[in-house]
């Protein structure tokens, strides 16, 4: 019985794969009535110069936002720039292309020899990072449409305890590492798939996508900019750049009068209060050294954990998942209702080929897991190290890594000259 069904299935598969041999079963008739064959319409995609216009708009809004933050010190100016960016990059351009997603294009360009990188994707990745290296995260304040939409709903921001901020602040690193891992293994673009606001920008999306976006906006009323602070993977890169930026915005134009108004005004908890160093210098250095020594251990633990997770991580790859399914349930190969299995049988690939391919991808995930885990270990180690160090600070200063340069503190600062 089984053999008969196999033969039948092969026959059907053969019949269905006939077009692949590119033959014309019924030749085109020679018409006698002067019938004119219609043309198959081919509507053109968006013109190329409009894509370049997007790059120009990015540079222009970024320049204006930076000028407002660093030079004019105007919160209102940045806010209106961000509203414009929300309208243009968000609602008009419908959220695509964006700098956050471009991480994956760059990764794919580095790992997939067949991938061709559009110039616009490269520009959207590099330009905000370069500007941030000089002027801080003005991109987050005035250009990013995802940031803008959240900034506008932050009506009642509550203060999140420092420890929780630190813990949640590690999610973006994990998200970044996962996004790079999945893009590098050519599995999928994680960031784009779970972009919470793109559905709102398009006024059209699956229910889950709108739910996610709505949820972020709802939470965003109380926790200012939750996506930016606790998820955004591009924010990680911007944070690194911003931490060492030369002309990052200052809260006061001259001398701080320690009024604490700025710290109260910052909805992101990104202002460091003045601290005095405690304890003797010797013990402090010793403590830091201990934390430093533990970093390789963190990296090792993380790497080991990451590599051990490579099997579940690889499940999200289409090929690996199909191979696993077909190995575990060989009867699925005959199931015509199972679209992926049917397509695989029609493709004429052998099971061995599929398994070899899946094994190769899995081994990529194994090494990727080591790197991902090691990176996360390093992040944990450095976060602890940073927590353990108390540097003397005399004034209220923006925490350059996490400051989004929105300019609220400048607005609240009573020192105007």
């Amino acid at each position, binding site marked *: 019985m089984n053999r008969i069904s196999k033969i039948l299935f092969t026959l059907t598969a053969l019949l*269905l794969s*006939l*077009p*692949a041999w*590119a*033959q*014309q*079963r*019924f*030749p*085109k*008739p020679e*018409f*006698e*009535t002067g019938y004119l*064959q*219609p*043309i*198959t*319409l081919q*509507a053109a*995609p*968006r013109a*190329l110069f409009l*894509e370049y216009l997007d790059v120009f708009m990015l540079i222009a809004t970024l320049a204006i936002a930076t000028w407002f933050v660093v030079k004019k010190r105007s919160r209102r100016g940045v806010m209106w720039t961000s509203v414009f960016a929300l309208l243009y990059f968000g609602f008009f351009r419908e959220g695509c*292309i964006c700098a956050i*997603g471009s991480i994956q294009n*760059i990764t794919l*360009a*580095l790992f997939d020899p067949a991938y*061709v*990188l*559009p*110039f*616009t994707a*490269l520009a959207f*990745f*590099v330009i905000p*990072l370069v500007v941030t*290296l000089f002027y801080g995260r003005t991109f987050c304040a005035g250009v990013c449409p995802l940031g803008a939409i959240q900034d506008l709903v932050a009506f009642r921001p509550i203060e999140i305890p420092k420890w929780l901020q630190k813990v949640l602040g590690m999610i973006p690193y994990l998200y970044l590492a996962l996004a790079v891992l999945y893009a590098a293994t050519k599995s*999928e*673009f994680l960031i*784009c*798939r779970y972009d919470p606001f793109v559905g709102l920008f*398009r006024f*059209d*999306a699956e229910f889950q996508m709108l739910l996610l976006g709505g949820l972020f906006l709802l939470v965003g009323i109380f926790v200012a900019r939750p996506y930016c602070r606790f998820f955004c993977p591009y924010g990680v890169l911007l944070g690194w*750049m911003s931490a060492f930026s*030369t002309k990052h915005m200052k809260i006061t134009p001259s001398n701080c009068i320690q009024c604490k108004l700025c710290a109260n005004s910052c909805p992101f908890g990104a202002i460091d209060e003045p601290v005095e160093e405690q304890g003797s*210098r010797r013990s402090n250095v010793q403590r830091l050294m201990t934390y430093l020594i533990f970093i390789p251990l963190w990296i090792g633990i993380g790497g080991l954990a990451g590599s051990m997770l490579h099997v579940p991580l690889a499940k999200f790859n*289409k090929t690996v998942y199909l191979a696993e399914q077909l190995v575990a349930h060989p009867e699925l190969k005959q199931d015509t209702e199972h*679209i*992926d299995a*049917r*397509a695989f049988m*029609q*493709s004429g690939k052998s099971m061995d080929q599929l398994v070899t391919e899946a094994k190769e991808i899995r081994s990529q995930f194994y090494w990727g897991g080591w790197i991902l885990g090691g990176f996360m270990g390093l992040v944990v180690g450095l976060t602890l*190290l940073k927590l353990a*160090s108390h*540097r003397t600070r005399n004034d209220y200063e923006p925490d350059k890594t996490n400051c989004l340069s929105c300019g609220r503190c400048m607005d609240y600062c009573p020192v105007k000259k």
Partner: protein
Amino acid sequence: MSDKQEHQKPNRREFIQKGMRLTLGASLAGVAGFAALKVSADDYVWQLDPFKCVYCGRCADYCVVTPSAVKCVHAYDLCGYCDLCGGYLKPDANARSTAAENQLCPTAAIKRKFVEDPYFEYEIDEELCFGCAKCVEGCTSFGNGSLHLQVRHDLCVNCNECSIARVCPADAFERVPASNPYKIKGDFSQGTASSNPA
């Protein structure tokens, strides 16, 4: 990132800041440089290869725009103008007519027009088509395969990663240069193997 130098003279901290800044700048330049080796001035859009397509019907369900930006197109060069059209009529159709119960298309998006005996022209009304590929399966299984799916670029929003490509069982979706964005099947009897340039 090390904070060991906290009590040293400020210029030492400045030196570290400067060093880190240069390192970051250099690594950014490195990554961008490597990526720039693969850069193209052209833009890229998504298109599906009709020869790989297995007409599973997911194009109708997984597109981010509703209805799907994937539509059936008719490559007239390839059409046999059959009276008994596998793409238009249900396999168990009572008669070769335009009666609704005989039509394979769930939205009646294919218009059947008499040309001359015994030939009929089939035209797609793209307003009604939602890319379910039922006609594609019929035409490819029993006819020349002139009805096939294509991404319509006036409708497609060109997501960074096409959400249909992610689930396509045949890996038929690929990024193609925006200057040549369609893969319409050509006329096999003329010897053109795949798409025409247009």
